[in-house]
């Protein structure tokens, strides 16, 4: 397997992770909207969700940071 293909697959996998986490965030926001519409008690639910979404994005940011950082930190002759 040549390097270019592997590179593309790596970038693809990171993009998919971002997609997944965005999907999770959208889902949680949807659920919050539902709960407001149905007059469920929103407090704890909102709190938990609003903590969870930044957590997911922190994770994907760290992953991206590592990926790009490792790329940049390579020896120049590659």
């Amino acid at each position, binding site marked *: *397997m040549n*390097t270019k293909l*592997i590179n593309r*697959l*790596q970038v693809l996998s990171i993009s998919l992770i971002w997609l997944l*986490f965005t999907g*999770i965030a959208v*889902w*949680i926001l949807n*659920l*919050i909207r*539902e*709960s407001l519409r*149905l007059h*469920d*008690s*929103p407090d*704890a*639910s*909102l709190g*938990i*969700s609003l903590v*969870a979404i930044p*957590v*997911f994005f*922190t*994770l994907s940011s*760290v*992953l991206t*940071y*590592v*990926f790009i*950082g*490792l*790329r*940049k*930190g*390579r*020896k120049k002759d*590659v």
Partner: protein
Amino acid sequence: MEKAAAAPHPDYDLLRPIENPGKSFYYIVAVLLVIILYTGFVYIRQVYYGLGVTGMAQPVTWGFYIINFVFFIGISHAGTLISAILRLSKAEWRRPITRMAEVITAIVLAIGGLHPILDLGRPDRMTHLFYNGRLQSPLLWDIVSITAYFTASTVYLFIPMIPDIAILRDRGVKPRWLYEFLSWGWQGTEQQHKVLDRAMNILMVVVIPIAISVHTIISYIFAMTVQPGWHSTIFGPYFVVGAIFSGIAAILVLMIVFRKVFHLERYLKLIHFNYLSVLLLVMSLLWFYFTFSEYLTGFYGHEPNEMRVFWYKFSGAYAPYFWTMVTCNFLVPLILLSNRKTRTIPGILIASISVIIGMWLERLIIVVPSLANPRLPYPTGVYIPSLTEWTMFLGGVSVFILGYMMFARFFPVISIWEIQEGRQESAKAVTERITSYMPDPQPRYTGSMEIE
């Protein structure tokens, strides 16, 4: 198929399971696959006929599936939590342990997270949770937090694995593309080390509150109802302590097994077991403190419904399980682990297995008695798990073992680069650190005792 070049490496013991797996690996995998396949059939049968194939009924409408759900997720705690806390506190003895712990978490979370689905009467309607989920239900909180923990622990497992994957890639281990793909171009340059360090520092802090939240939220499934024996404020911390407790026991068992099977006596030394088993002892005492507190409060208040559940556990139908649990969780670890003479590898193995059994019993004792003793005057419920539920339990354990074996087949269970780093830098770093704790050199005083 060519065997990978067995080039000499100071830590070849850690690479051998990957480069030279041996025949017994395939036999065991085959057996596990058969068990798992059978479990799959049993589950399909359950979906076809309905949950009637289990032993659940009214009023005990939750049984093995929920018990194992809590049990498996409980074990996941020690993994990431211990690894993160040990890294955060810069405990140097963590180096051979962290990866094993993190792998436990990742696998066991997936299994545990699957169990509520096994428990559903209509798993085909699972998507309702996503389309119409109600965030006010603790079950939804669970979904969010378990997903967060699973992703966090997977990332926290993967990132410190990158340098080791690079080692495998450079040694030309098959399948080459896998290690190329996962190593993300690691070359060990100083800049790359900095990036990795920073990422790990962020992660090990972020992971801890997530881990604590997971088992707290699982306890809320019970604590948020008004049922006697469940509606207790202590449940959050109680579950977290219990989870860490069972998790440490699981790591210890795994360490002992791998030490034997992979001949890792040089890496997993008695001192590692010593330290971890003292932690296990501390958790045992903590667990006992919480348990004592919970039951004393219930007993002293003497509320009638609470007392029915209380006596059901203390002297009623569940007394054998209750007292076995106390023995397994408290007496056995206390006796075996407080005495240095019995804190040997066999002693630690017995204590750890005892704790795992005891913690499973604790989950049983939390779930069933409160359901079996409804407030209104019904006959006391009886729950006898069916063969289906036992099979699913066995299947869950088999999936865990298989998952772990597959991991160990492709990746080193002990972090090679961290061991190397430890060899090269730890002694100096620790000496510097300890020197900084000592008082600064005294300034010179002039004759009048003032600072020069």
